[in-house]
């Protein structure tokens, strides 16, 4: 046997010791301190979370305000400010026990006296809150640490709703001061407290020293939250190229929404890493069921049959990493994913489309398709789809407007037939925007409404899954709207930013820290 020379062995030992001392192993120990700079896409429309459905509002303010529940890795509701809850009286009574000694940023202890008015306001002003409030009979404080919600009829959506960032808990004084309007102060129980908002400059948050974290290890958005940074600055940087340049030079640590075509460049830069937000949402062509043309099932089916999703998604998102062709209403990352009626997705069957149009007696009435360049993918999706639709005989009038105009125009059923949008991630299967009868498009299908009501009352996971599959079948057969595909977005981060911030679909910075 050959003897290994002493010098060689010494060298090996030194190498091992070096490897142990290298930053690669040091990075496992989180470091306290530093100011995190995040380049965000624009100004949030408000900081009052329940008032808005905009993701940016949640992604900033849920560091400050917490809700009673949140989601774990599998997107199942888990307690956050709540300690536990029980459902009794055949789903008609929810008793929620609150955690003790949880302090607001103003030093006051959180109790049911704050939770009850917060929930009532949520039921009054939040979009989802208002939908769910029709099931709620009353909300009462049983004692300082117990809240009882009595229901008119069972709703499995309630706990999902309470797990959303918009069901945030505020001190009762803040809610009283707001009256019917927006909140005037932003006090919460979160790991970071709100310091200042200088419009078009930054939103500054600072570590909340008295934060009472949960004891369980972090799991998805739930479990223990630790604020490692001294401060977080959300900087408003509307120009994409500047966000990328800034993260490259180290002026920002994290940049939201980088154009997908910069993916290769980010990969080539050793100081940066890409964060693909997967899942983010699905691209969709919403059809107007109140329009005389789109109100006809056969025309909707022809629309669905004509489209070839691959080129549509390539145009919108470029590289394969950023889209996925999948028929399901829910993402494969969720427990509710299904392939029911998959054959009706991505048919690109021109003959079938032509036949259906003929049967419907379609006389080339123009489809007014409202889209926007503010979200480039919506415009590009619609451009390719228009071409495919015209090949089978549709007349498409593409109307490119700004986002505000799109939202306004689509509220009026007489002004459009189709519009582009993206449906972002929804954890609650019973309350997905695509299934709401009140949402623009007004897809109110008797069978679907019946199944949704059934889903609201069903707690068994297997049975729920079966109901969801049936809903998906109705969605495809009646063509509620036309799903184009799943899409993912790209963020860029510097390598010194470590921790959990990559968790999709929403961005958060507790449990993340800056190395060095």
């Amino acid at each position, binding site marked *: 046997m050959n003897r290994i020379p002493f010098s060689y062995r010494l060298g090996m030992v030194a190498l091992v010791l070096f490897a142990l001392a290298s930053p690669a192993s040091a990075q496992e120990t989180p470091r306290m301190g530093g100011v995190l700079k995040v380049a965000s896409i624009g100004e949030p429309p*408000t900081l009052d979370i329940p008032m808005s459905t905009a993701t940016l509002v949640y992604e900033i303010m849920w560091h400050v305000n917490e809700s009673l529940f949140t989601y774990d890795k599998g997107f199942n509701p888990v307690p956050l400010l709540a300690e536990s809850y029980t459902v009794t009286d055949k789903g008609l009574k929810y008793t929620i026990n609150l955690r003790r000694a949880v302090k607001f940023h103003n030093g006051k202890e959180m109790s049911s006296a704050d939770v009850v008015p917060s929930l009532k306001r949520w039921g009054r002003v939040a979009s989802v809150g208002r939908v769910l409030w029709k099931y709620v009979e009353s909300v009462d404080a049983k004692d300082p640490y117990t809240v009882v919600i009595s229901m008119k009829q069972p709703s499995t959506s309630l706990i999902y709703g309470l797990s959303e960032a918009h069901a945030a808990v505020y001190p009762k004084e803040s809610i009283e001061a707001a009256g019917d309007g927006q909140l005037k102060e932003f006090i919460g129980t979160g790991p970071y407290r709100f310091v200042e908002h200088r419009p*078009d400059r930054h939103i500054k948050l600072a570590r909340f020293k008295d934060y009472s974290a949960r004891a369980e290890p972090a799991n998805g958005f739930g479990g223990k939250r630790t604020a490692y940074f001294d401060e977080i600055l959300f900087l*408003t940087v509307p120009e994409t190229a500047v966000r990328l340049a800034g993260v490259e*030079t180290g002026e920002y640590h994290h940049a939201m929404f980088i154009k997908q075509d910069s993916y290769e460049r980010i990969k080539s830069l050793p100081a940066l890493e890409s964060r693909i937000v997967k899942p983010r949402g699905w691209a969709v062509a919403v059809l107007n069921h109140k329009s005389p043309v789109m109100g006809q099932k056969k025309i909707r089916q022809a629309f669905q049959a004509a489209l070839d999703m691959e080129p549509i998604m390539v145009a919108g998102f470029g590289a394969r990493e950023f889209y996925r062709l999948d028929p399901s209403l829910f993402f494969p990352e969720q427990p509710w994913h299904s392939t029911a009626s998959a054959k009706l997705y991505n048919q690109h069957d021109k003959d079938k489309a032509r036949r259906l149009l003929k049967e419907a007696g379609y006389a080339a009435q123009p489809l007014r398709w409202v889209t926007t360049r503010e979200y480039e993918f919506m415009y590009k999706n619609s451009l390719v789809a228009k071409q495919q639709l015209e090949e089978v005989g549709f007349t498409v009038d593409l109307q490119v407007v700004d986002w505000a105009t799109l939202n*306004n125009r689509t509220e009026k059923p007489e002004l459009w037939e189709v519009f582009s949008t993206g449906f972002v991630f929804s954890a609650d299967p019973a309350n997905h925007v695509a299934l709401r009868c009140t949402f623009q498009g007004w897809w109110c299908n008797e069978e679907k409404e019946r199944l949704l009501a059934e889903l609201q009352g069903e707690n068994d996971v297997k049975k729920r899954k079966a109901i969801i599959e049936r809903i998906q079948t109705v969605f495809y057969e009646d063509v509620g709207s036309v799903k184009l595909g799943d899409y993912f977005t790209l963020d860029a981060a510097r390598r010194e930013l470590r921790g959990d911030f990559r968790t999709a679909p929403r961005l958060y910075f507790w449990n993340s820290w800056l190395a060095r």
Partner: protein
Amino acid sequence: MKIYLLRRVLAVIPVMLVVATVTFLLIHLAPGDPASIIAGPDAAPGDVARLRHNLGLDEPLPAQLLRWYGRLLRGDLGDSIFLRRPVLEAVQERLEPTLLLTTWATLIAVLLGVPAGIISARYHNTAIDQSFMGLALLGLSVPNFLLGLLMILVFGVWLRWLPVAGYVPLDMGLWPNARSLLMPSVSLGLVQSALIARITRSSMLDVLREQYILASRAKGLSERVVVYKHALKNAIIPTLTVIGITFAILVGGAVVIETVFNIPGLGRLIISAVLRRDYPVIQGVVLLIAVTYTLINLMVDLVYLTLDPRIRYQ
């Protein structure tokens, strides 16, 4: 003179009335409103309508217009819907970056443009003239946002000499402030310097052909005295008009450059206000810009007086 001044100042009032009315009508005719922006993309139409009512946006348009006039008469531009503070206060806060940016840009435009124009005229039809005018043509053709992005790439990302974006307020020190404004002012000022150079050159050429220039040369004055003392004073008047307009144009151009370089100035204020339909801010800022435009024009007219004694305003 005093009567002239008074008349000019009074003439601002009807101009403002027209501007106020047109702005109000235009932005209210544009579809979309603040309520749908606040409520976000997934909000139900009912939620938006409720918010619209809370914000007082469901009143008839004439009623809203009258209320806006009434406020204007009291010198009140209203409160921003998103910033939830008086428009005037928001404008004051944004004035510093925009004023500094446009002043620097104008300075760069003048310091580069005027000498380039004079030298080109003096060496008319030589290689110097042609290269200067070639550069000016290039300067005029490159959009300022493209120049800005290229500068970010070169000086911010490759060379790392300057910050890629962002604004450092003046109270944090003159040097950091100037450093943060260097790239934006150059990309804004360069285009205008090209314009100024071309105007100065052509007006210098006109003047240099005048008989009094011939006379001064005949008197044996040095070329330097002829050009800088006798010709320049007369040639500068059209340039001055352009400089005045330049300053005003730059306030408009700042809208783009402020977005590219992430400077929280008036331009950014108005862009975000338009995107989220913050009516009071759009109305207020457009009105203030109109006032500034008119006042700059008035000031330019008054400067003519001191430069050219033949000009008399009645």
